[in-house]
């Protein structure tokens, strides 16, 4: 055995080794023999409180599992006399003094066998490395990775399930992703639409225009907006509205494009139908208006005609024979008397007993016209003492509206002067003056 050149204090040397060493006996209780100052430092317990004590008495296990893990490792070394590295364990140490409580620590411990000359196990040397920091860093990295994966999954879920057709493209404009809505819509595999394959699935009349617009956007970086017909899985071309925006990095370079499309086929159709309906309505309303104007014009013409006619004209409306229209010649026969708006029986009560109302009723009911010839009527004129004794030639003619009797049209001539003159002549002939 080689001896040292100088006398060496091996215990001092051991105590000051810059590692956490704990020397343990080979007994079942794993009695603690000694430890380094560094071990004292990290274990937060004075040497006097651990040396000579059973391992688990000095350092109680926080749980059964970890205790078993340590026991198994000790046993491994005892049996195989080979170093044994334990899995990373959490082994919290009691804080000394007022601080109190436990400090959360992670350890990587290895048990080494120390053998004597005969190769028998003399001690178990535990080397413990405090890997709390590395462990925490690894934990944090794993958590970050998980969070990232979760975030990606979230994004993917959103892209796949939004009621929108979504795609992405590289800075060169080549499409590199389509969401499942898009693929379900077109019924084509993703590979068919990648790059510029998607253009094949557009309506032939739209391909050139859309390709040009997309190329423009890719070149200038301007937002891409376009409408076109995309072939659906059933072969029908549907109008869609597509909008895409470029994503830029810190250097303002485009790193990708994300596009979204919505089916606007129904909307567009509705706009078209509405336009057609409105144009039809506009046309109809124009025609109705023209007809109305024409009817108005005609009404005015007839009105003027009747008003200026050199005959007595009036219109009696309804079964009560209400004066609806009276021309000036007619009114002249009844100067100063209110006719318009009144029934004949009320406007001219004196004609009732002369049988006029009965004739009017009959014409109104049967529709047979009545022709009066030199009919004698007597009526009062305001300011005249004697009733006016007049003779009239006239017609009463029913008029109909919507297939129903509506009133009577009266057309008359005052032939009083003629009759009176003739009567005078007849008087002369019948009674020749005495000779």
């Amino acid at each position, binding site marked *: 055995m080689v001896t040292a050149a100088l006398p060496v204090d091996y215990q001092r040397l051991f105590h000051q080794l810059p590692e956490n060493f704990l020397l343990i006996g080979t007994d079942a209780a794993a009695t603690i023999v000694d430890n380094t100052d560094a071990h004292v430092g990290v274990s937060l317990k004075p040497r006097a409180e651990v040396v000579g004590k059973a391992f688990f008495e000095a350092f109680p296990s926080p749980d059964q599992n970890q205790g078993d893990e340590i026991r198994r490792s000790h046993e491994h070394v005892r049996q195989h006399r080979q170093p044994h590295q334990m899995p990373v364990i959490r082994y919290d140490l009691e804080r000394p003094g007022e601080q109190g409580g436990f400090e959360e620590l992670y350890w990587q411990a290895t048990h080494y066998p120390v053998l004597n000359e005969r190769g028998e196990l003399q001690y178990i040397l535990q080397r413990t490395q405090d890997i709390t920091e590395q462990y925490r860093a690894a934990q944090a990295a794993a958590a970050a990775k998980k969070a990232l994966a979760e975030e990606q999954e979230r994004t993917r879920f959103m892209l796949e399930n939004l009621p929108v057709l979504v795609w992405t493209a590289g800075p060169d404009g080549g499409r590199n992703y389509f969401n499942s809505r898009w693929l379900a819509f077109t019924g084509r595999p993703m590979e068919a639409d990648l790059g510029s394959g998607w253009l094949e699935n557009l309506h032939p009349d739209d391909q050139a225009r859309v390709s040009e*617009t997309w190329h423009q956007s890719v070149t200038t970086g301007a937002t891409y*907006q*376009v*409408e076109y017909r995309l072939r659906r899985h059933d072969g029908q071309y549907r*109008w869609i*509205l597509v*909008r895409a925006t470029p994503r830029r990095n810190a250097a303002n370079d485009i790193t990708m494009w994300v596009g979204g499309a919505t089916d*606007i086929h129904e*909307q*567009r159709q509705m*706009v*078209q139908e*509405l*336009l057609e309906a*409105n*144009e039809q*309505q*506009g046309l109809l*309303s*124009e025609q109705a*208006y023209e007809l*109305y*104007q024409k009817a*108005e014009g005609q009404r005015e013409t007839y009105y003027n005609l009747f008003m200026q006619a050199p005959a007595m004209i009036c219109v009696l409306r309804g079964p009560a024979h209400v004066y609806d229209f009276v021309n000036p010649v007619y009114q002249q026969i009844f100067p100063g008397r209110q006719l318009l708006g009144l029934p004949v029986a009320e406007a001219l009560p004196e004609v009732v007993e002369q049988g006029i109302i009965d004739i009017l009723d009959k014409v109104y009911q049967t529709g047979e016209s009545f022709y009066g010839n030199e009919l004698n009527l007597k009526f009062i004129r305001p300011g005249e003492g004697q009733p006016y004794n007049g003779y009239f030639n006239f017609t009463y003619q029913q008029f109909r509206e919507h297939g129903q009797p509506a009133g009577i049209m009266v057309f008359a001539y005052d032939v009083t002067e003629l009759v009176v003159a003739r009567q005078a002549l007849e008087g002369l002939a019948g009674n020749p003056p005495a000779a």
Partner: protein
Amino acid sequence: MALTSFDFQQARVKQVLFKSRLRSVLYGVREAEPELFSMRENPLGQWLQTSVKPALGAQPEVREIERVLQQMLQTGHDLARRYQSGLIEEARNGLDQVNIYADQIELLLTGLERNATA
């Protein structure tokens, strides 16, 4: 000839028709014809000129309708140009402004009608 409610109904139909035509331009259903935005060829503008002005030219509403209609046509023209230059959504969003003008015109027509047919 005096204006009747029939005339005003006509004006309202023309108004809706303009909006419908503009919308169809902004939805790519039909190409924009230049006369769509011309005051002289706009049906409502023509109605103002030939029917309303002779009868009610002095009413302040007439001038006001003319002014708002001019703005509506101008806005419609701008929207059609926006649509043609690829700003599809921006153009369609602009229909809100057209609706505001249309509502103003409707309000003025109602006032005018009340005065004219009272």
